[in-house]
């Protein structure tokens, strides 16, 4: 393999058969190119879907009230369900050991928000300190509501980044500024950002303050939880489904709702939803692999075909070489050596070209559900190796047969 004379012989042959070499190389390179691009997009779709789920904590479970649609225990359908503090507290104590973070939330309605003389139309929501981790809220300035604020009924507010850009563009930082909510001044203590701009148009205040000051009583609008992370995805899903079902059962009993009444409340688990999407991306990936492998098979067939033609074309040359004293193995070695060299160079060429394309173009792709298409180098590398091996194997048979043919017969070949 590292025989310098052999290399020189190979280079001579390649230099003098440029078209043949080029065509072989092209079929190999394009096969690899297509596979890498396909795999890249498979990964891109997975990335995209993962990002869609990143906006909330992946283990979050949410409960929303609705309107009953079924008669149950003498109660008429059409009853509006209202969650209350008691529900939250009961769940909190019942599932203390499985809950990681918990927060009730209240939408503060019928309030006016002013900054100086400017009237703001942003929703005001009362949340607990844990809500930051449930919503996966990133703080870019100041801090989130803490437990102290909850106990002390602190008149503090957290605003979204969008609000800062829209309203507080004239001050250096909105921290320390005051917004009036229905005449009561709230001090801004933090700015948060979200994956979606729409969710940055919110003002968070402590839930206790929201209930006490804005006449919320003991009502809450929804309940949200996260469960501690589990390494194994299936276990995490099982845990989430388990908790979701318990939560639903409790809330149904507490509000006297038929167990099969889907309209009365919605309990939603991000994990369960994610599993559905992961299943989908899994299938898409399998499909892409299938197409990719078909491409590679086509590439291998192409290489074998070219090998057959090359050997056929060189039958006479092989005869001449043998008459001059070439041993059979040296003939096989020469043909395979050239084939491996050409396949390897063009295979890695295609690999580098397609990977470079993914690297350059990939991060700029901004389509829903396709984010940063990329491919694992190891996978792509392994594919090239497989292609080379398959090509070698495919080339070996005709090369071996050609080397075995009696010299006079090869020489008779025109």
């Amino acid at each position, binding site marked *: 393999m590292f025989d310098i*004379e052999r290399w020189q*012989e190979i280079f*001579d042959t390649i230099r003098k058969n440029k078209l043949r070499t080029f065509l072989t190389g092209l079929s190999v390179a394009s096969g690899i190119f297509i596979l890498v691009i396909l795999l890249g997009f498979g990964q891109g779709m997975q990335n995209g879907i993962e990002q869609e789920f990143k906006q909330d904590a992946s283990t979050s479970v949410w409960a929303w009230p609705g309107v009953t649609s079924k008669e149950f225990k003498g109660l008429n359908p059409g009853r509006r369900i209202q969650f209350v503090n008691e529900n939250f507290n009961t769940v909190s104590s019942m599932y203390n050991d499985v809950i990681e973070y918990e927060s009730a939330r209240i939408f503060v309605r019928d309030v006016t928000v002013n900054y100086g003389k400017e009237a703001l139309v942003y929703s005001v929501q009362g949340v607990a300190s844990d809500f930051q981790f449930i919503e996966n809220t990133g703080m870019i300035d100041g801090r989130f509501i803490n437990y102290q604020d909850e106990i002390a009924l602190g008149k503090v507010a957290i605003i979204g980044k969008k609000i800062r850009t829209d309203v507080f563009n004239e001050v250096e930082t909105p921290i320390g500024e005051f917004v009036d909510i229905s005449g009561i001044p709230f001090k801004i203590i933090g700015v948060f950002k979200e994956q979606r701009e729409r969710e940055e148009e919110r003002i968070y205040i402590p839930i206790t303050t929201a209930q006490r000051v804005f006449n919320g009583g003991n009502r809450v609008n929804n309940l949200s939880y996260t469960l501690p992370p589990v390494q194994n995805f299936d276990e995490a899903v099982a845990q989430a489904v388990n908790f979701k079902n318990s939560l639903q059962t409790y809330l149904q009993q507490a509000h006297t709702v038929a167990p099969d009444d889907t309209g009365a409340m919605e309990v939603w688990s991000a994990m369960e939803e994610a599993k559905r999407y992961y299943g989908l991306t899994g299938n898409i990936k399998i499909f892409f692999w299938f197409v990719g492998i078909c491409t590679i098979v086509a590439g291998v067939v192409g290489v074998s075909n070219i090998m057959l033609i090359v050997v056929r074309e060189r039958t006479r040359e092989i005869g001449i070489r043998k008459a*001059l004293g070439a041993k059979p193995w040296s003939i096989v070695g020469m043909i395979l050596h050239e084939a491996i060299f050409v396949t390897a160079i063009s295979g890695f060429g295609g690999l580098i070209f397609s990977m470079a394309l993914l690297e350059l173009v990939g991060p700029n792709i901004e389509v829903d559900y396709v984010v940063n298409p990329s491919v694992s180098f190891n996978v792509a590398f392994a594919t090239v190796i497989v292609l080379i091996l398959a090509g070698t194997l495919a080339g070996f048979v005709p090369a071996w047969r050609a080397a075995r043919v009696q010299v006079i017969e090869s*020489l008779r070949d025109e």
Partner: protein
Amino acid sequence: MIEIKDLHKSYKMGSNSLHVLKGINFTAEAGELVAIMGSSGSGKSTLLNILGILDGADSGEYTLDGVPIEDLTETKAAQYRNKFLGFVFQSFNLINYKSALENVALPLYYQKVGRKERQEKALNYLDKVGLKEWASHLPSELSGGQKQRVAIARAMAAEPKVLLADEPTGALDSTTSYEVMALIQKINDEGNTILVVTHEEDIAHMCKRIVHLKDGVIVEDKKVKQVRAEQYV
């Protein structure tokens, strides 16, 4: 140098077999220039192929330079061809994508001679056949006579014990044929053993000995007075 005893060879043609060589006995000493003559189908090319270890015999003994040639593996046969034999073919059999020089250097490659020495030797042999200026030309850029001279240079480059020429002038006009024969005579003068297969009387008479083959047996084996080819050139 060459000694064969009771050599038989037949070819299978479908269901019946064709008995081509029917017991050939033949010896050639070192330095001889032998013409093997015969009409087509007489078995002269088959005999040459067996002598050149390009084909195997069915039965009989063949000794080349004291080495018995029998039951050879492909590898061993390749070694013997490389070491003992040089070939000149009617259709030249040059590798068309290699230059004249590279063609001549090829047997040396299989003798594991280094690249530089190979090129030097090859150029030297090209010079001997008068084609030094054509070293970098491809076979397609050479005339028939030039191609055959390159082929002879290639055959000689390996410094074989025996040079086997199968109708070396078959594809050439008479003037060029005599040029090629003059070259073969010159090489023979230097002491090389040469066997020439031909069906042309004048070419045969430029050798020192003529062996006539007919229907697979030697019917005549005589020494002749050599006609020098230079006088026709």
